């Protein structure tokens, strides 16, 4: 998304550091954060709203452990797609309702010919395979090869932790 970088001041940065680990689970969480930063809860809310509007924050909410909520099959599907068609096709793959992340990334030849990554979460591997087959149909002849890398363990999942 070609946008100018939003201006963040030192207080915004302190607010990012204070909330990147999560919101406090107390009745007035924004007041609690404001108390740590020496600003009011209203200002915390206004600053978070501004960061949401400018895209610095994607959304505010819960991140489930996908295994725990039943999505025990997680396949990172990777595709070698014709460079002249990847942007058009990548947008269409990303629009599939079962694709949770979709990116174009560089190839690492000769070992890694894939330039399109589409993450598929399902309840079992058969379901992932069926969905990967749908992507294959969509890509058609523009795709030369593909693979699916199933995850077998979450080794870490803490999210962003930048230093203050």
């Amino acid at each position, binding site marked *: 998304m070609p946008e100018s970088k939003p201006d963040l001041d030192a207080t915004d940065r302190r607010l990012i550091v204070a909330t990147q680990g999560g919101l406090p689970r107390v009745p007035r969480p924004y007041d609690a954060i404001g108390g740590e930063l020496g600003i009011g809860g209203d200002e915390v809310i206004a600053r978070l709203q501004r960061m949401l509007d400018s895209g610095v924050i994607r*959304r505010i909410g819960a991140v489930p452990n996908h295994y725990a909520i*039943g999505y025990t099959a997680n396949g990172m599907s990777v595709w070698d797609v014709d460079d002249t068609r990847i942007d058009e096709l990548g947008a269409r793959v990303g629009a599939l309702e079962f694709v949770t*992340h979709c990116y174009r990334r560089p190839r690492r030849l000769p070992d890694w010919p894939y330039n399109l990554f589409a993450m598929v979460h399902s309840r079992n591997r058969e379901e992932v395979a069926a969905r990967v087959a749908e992507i294959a149909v969509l890509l058609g002849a523009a795709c030369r090869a593909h693979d699916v890398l199933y995850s077998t363990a979450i080794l*870490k999942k803490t999210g*962003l932790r930048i230093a203050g």
Partner: protein
Amino acid sequence: MPEAAALDETDRRLINALQGDFPLVAEPYREVAESLGLSEAELLRRLESLHQRRVLTRFGPMFQIERAGGAFVLAAMKVAEADFERVAAQVNAFPEVAHNYRREHALNMWFVLATATPQGIAETIAAIEAATGLPVFPFPKEREYFVEMKLHA
């Protein structure tokens, strides 16, 4: 392979509701609780339990750190089975490693680095290579077509 947690219907409704837009109001939990027909105390209690059981890995703002001058990069390593635990511990010890997955492939460790500056990525990769003695292959995103981290519970 980890197993699915035991969740009741209320837990599932709560997880689904909380993946949406958490309200930016003075008492947001009360507002969400009311929309679910729960008391605020019950919602907070369940939220705590879901964290303790690691059903929720975090709860709060998801930052798109590139918009704040930082960087996210996916990277992979090829780790021998005998070294896997040691290398996983070494990689996970870096606070810049936001998450890390084991995957079935010759490149069997895939992690995301998040740093406050773009230069931080190269520095962290060099430090991980030095700590583990293994090469790190970065796969920076060239274009994002879609990201939606919501999953129906």
